[in-house]
């Protein structure tokens, strides 16, 4: 089964990008200049304090840009994590006389663990739970800071906090914090384009699609949340060293809201936005000091700001600027040429790729799928049809792991996948598309397909980002959209979005491809194109299980058909024979 594909390979070699370190050199040079300036310029104490506050706060807000911006999860306790780091340094250097570095690392670890624990207890559930649980956690931390006087010194706070020997003067300490800011900023900025960062963005855009593309959604969210907590702790530790004094009111719920506002105002998706938001919200209150004379007024304005930003500028200041910039750049950016897509489905098992036996899915008393057997032969196109409500899509959802089977067994290429979560089934070689398209809407076509290509266990992708892009480009070219790779999903027509979804599944080089009503909503030209595409996929030896209503498409494309009605299998066999089967005819047309 290694028929050459008939998609046109483009002869030009792919453009190799320069190593990252060289491309990002300007960033490091700028950062170095800032550090040198911070170390040598003369500030008065007031300016120095504002700079130190802005620097440490910005690191905490970077954390929010990871959890909220990249991963779409909320954290309303960033001030608590900030406080954990600050108290670790404060109590550690003052009461226990430990080294600053040890305390800083300790604070980071405590924050990380607290974040991971909160995440593990809550992130499987919806976002509302996370919001409330983080608020509760924030309240608990504040309660302990105020009441556990034996440990925290209570409302008086901790004073006389030490700095590291290396950075004793406030000038050198500021330079050190700026350097930390630059490093963390670089890592967070770069995170978006790593495998983990792409997974986070995929989770943010569409959890379901992320799962069936091989991403462990729960773990990705925990990583994001724990990383955010870690940055909070780091920032707090630096803050404590800088100001030498901490007290509970600096880490209250109100401060968490200030962090959130900073993040939203600047633009939650990028560390640049975080820096802008932090800078503005530290400077503006300094300019408007008179507001602080009325208690509450100041935070009331923050609250109003939050509502207004969410409504009128959801991407923040930087999001607004960056959006215009991306639009301009997307048109100029050259699209790398791609070779022909190779599909080499793994074949460990025997002649049957997918063997489903006695599969049932009951919702309470409703037997949506009831004891269904399906055997999909290797290298063929197998169709699953049936009237509305016959259990087709339920079957597909049980196969891909979105629903847990009530009974029965699913074996994919020799592996029992019955009890695996979606992402593990994908790792075992399953690929699927959705009837109502589920793409990652804030990403480009290429990025969407890259996430597919990143499937764990995909042997068709070499090491490194370039190989990944290459594979994704091949898949996009295969469905005919290679030239539009860098456009955002929203600029594609419905039919093209469906093709991108297919390309995303193809790039992962699945053993079995599940297509959920691919012809739904397509016009007749698009249906013809789809039919051609299916032929080209099948010609490469990839096994397909397709659900569709379009009888022309099904009868022409599939060699084998299984028919469901009321959750049970009523016919199974070679296409033409099945379509003439009297039970099938009566199920579709009714009997006399």
């Amino acid at each position, binding site marked *: 089964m290694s028929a050459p594909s008939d998609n046109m390979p483009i002869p030009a070699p792919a453009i190799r990008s320069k190593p990252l370190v060289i491309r990002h050199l300007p960033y490091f040079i700028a950062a170095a200049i800032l550090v040198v300036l911070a170390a040598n310029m003369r500030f008065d104490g007031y300016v120095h304090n504002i700079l130190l506050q802005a620097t440490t706060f910005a690191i905490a807000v970077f954390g929010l840009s990871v959890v909220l911006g990249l991963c779409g999860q909320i954290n309303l306790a960033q001030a608590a994590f900030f406080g954990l780091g600050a108290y670790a340094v404060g109590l550690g250097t003052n009461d226990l006389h430990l080294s600053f570095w040890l305390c800083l690392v300790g604070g980071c670890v405590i924050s990380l663990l607290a974040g991971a624990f909160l995440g593990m207890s809550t992130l499987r559930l919806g976002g*509302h739970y996370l919001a409330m649980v983080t608020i*509760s956690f924030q309240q608990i931390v504040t309660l302990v800071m105020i009441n556990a006087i034996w440990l925290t010194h209570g409302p008086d706070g901790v004073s006389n906090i030490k700095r590291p020997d290396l950075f004793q003067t406030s000038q050198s300490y500021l330079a050190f914090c700026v350097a930390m800011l630059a490093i963390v900023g670089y890592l967070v900025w770069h995170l978006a384009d790593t495998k983990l960062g792409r997974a986070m963005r995929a989770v943010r855009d569409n959890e379901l699609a992320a799962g069936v593309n091989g991403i462990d959604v729960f773990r990705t969210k925990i990583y994001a949340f724990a990383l955010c907590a870690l940055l909070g702790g780091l920032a707090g530790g630096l803050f404590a060293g800088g100001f030498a004094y901490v007290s509970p009111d600096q880490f209250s719920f109100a401060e968490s809201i200030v962090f959130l506002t900073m993040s939203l105002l600047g633009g939650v998706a990028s560390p640049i936005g975080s820096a802008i938001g932090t800078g503005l919200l530290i400077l503006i209150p300094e300019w408007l000091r008179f507001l602080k004379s009325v208690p509450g007024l100041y935070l009331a304005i923050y609250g109003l700001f939050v509502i207004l930003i969410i409504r009128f500028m959801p991407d923040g200041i930087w999001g607004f600027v960056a959006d215009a910039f991306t639009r301009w750049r997307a048109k100029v950016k050259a699209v790398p040429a791609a070779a022909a897509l190779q599909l080499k489905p793994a074949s460990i098992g025997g002649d049957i790729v997918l063997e489903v036996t006695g599969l049932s899915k009951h919702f309470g008393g409703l037997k949506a799928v009831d004891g269904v057997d399906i055997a999909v032969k290797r290298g063929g196109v197998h169709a699953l049809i049936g009237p509305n409500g016959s259990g087709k899509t339920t079957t597909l959802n049980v196969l891909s792991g979105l629903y847990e089977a009530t009974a029965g067994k699913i074996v994919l290429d020799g592996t029992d996948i019955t009890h695996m979560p979606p992402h593990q089934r994908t790792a075992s070689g399953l690929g699927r598309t959705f009837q109502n398209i589920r793409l990652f809407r804030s990403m480009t076509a290429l990025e969407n397909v890259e996430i597919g290509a990143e499937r764990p266990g995909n042997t068709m992708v070499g090491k490194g980002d370039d190989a990944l892009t290459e594979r994704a480009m091949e898949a996009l070219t295969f469905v005919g959209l290679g030239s539009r790779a860098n456009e955002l999903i929203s600029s594609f027509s419905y039919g093209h979005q469906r093709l991108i979804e297919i390309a995303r599944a193809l790039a992962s080089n699945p053993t079995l491809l599940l297509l959920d009503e691919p012809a739904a909503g397509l016009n007749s030209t698009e249906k013809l194109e789809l039919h051609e595409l299916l032929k080209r996929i099948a010609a490469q030896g990839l096994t397909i299980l397709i659900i569709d209503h379009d009888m022309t498409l099904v009868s022409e494309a599939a060699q084998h058909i299984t028919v469901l009605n009321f959750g049970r299998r009523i016919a199974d066999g070679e296409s033409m024979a099945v379509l003439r089967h009297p039970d099938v005819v009566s199920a579709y047309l009714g009997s006399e």
Partner: protein
Amino acid sequence: MDLALQLLFTGIGIGAVYALVALGFVLIFRATNVVNFAQGEFSMVAAYLMVVAVEAGLPYWAAFIVALLGMALLGVVFNLGVYYPLRHRTYLPVIIATIGASILLANSVLAIYGPQPQVLQGWFDTPGIQLGPVYLDSQYLLIIGVTICLVIFNFWFFEKTLLGKKLQATSQDKEMASLLGISVSTMIMITFIYSAVLGGLAGILVAPVLFVSIQMGSTIALKAFAATIIGGFGDVAGAIIGGLALGVIETFGAAYISVPYKDGFAFLVLVAFLVFRPQGIFGERVAEKA
């Protein structure tokens, strides 16, 4: 034993307040699929309105009506200003907006009224009655009585009246409801008004027991949210049972374990439920649907 009975009574009384606020959470959640994080501030604002009205010389019952009318108005403004413009967005922006609204409400009251906690008289002149070993505080009796009446009213309203059924239809399937000629935006507006009044009622009832303070809103909201999770998220009966249970647990915890950490018990119970039984006692609607 006598102490335990006394604590049980107090716990149920305070739990009834959590239950009322939790009910407001659940109603808005069912109508809009969004948790309103400013629900607790409704209670706080109502308590302040009550204080202002009583200080202005209105009789208690008149002040009560004025405060509840004020809450209805707040429900309208809240819906139009916070929820309605964002109704087509995902839940995250809406959550953040309601958090913003909560901060705005709490701190506006602080800016206008100052940080000093206020005292509100109870409804009755008699402080309470002694029943065997237990002293029944009149305000707690009132809270429990009103909660029972409201639960009955709620059942009657949603199950027996046409408007209640329309509201239910809207919360279950907005598109279908609108195809059947139900004005979805009106139904959502009514839900917000009803929830604001409910939250306000809870605030007015509990005000004589606690101090009227800026923090009372967020404290009550956290407990009420924990109550909804304990009971089973999105479930009306669950919210009430969860609220009562939390009130009792907290009162006993404060008496036998630690007073300063009283507000922490709700969190511990919450985390225990999230880890071991996230679907709550009545088990419904665990995570958002796909």
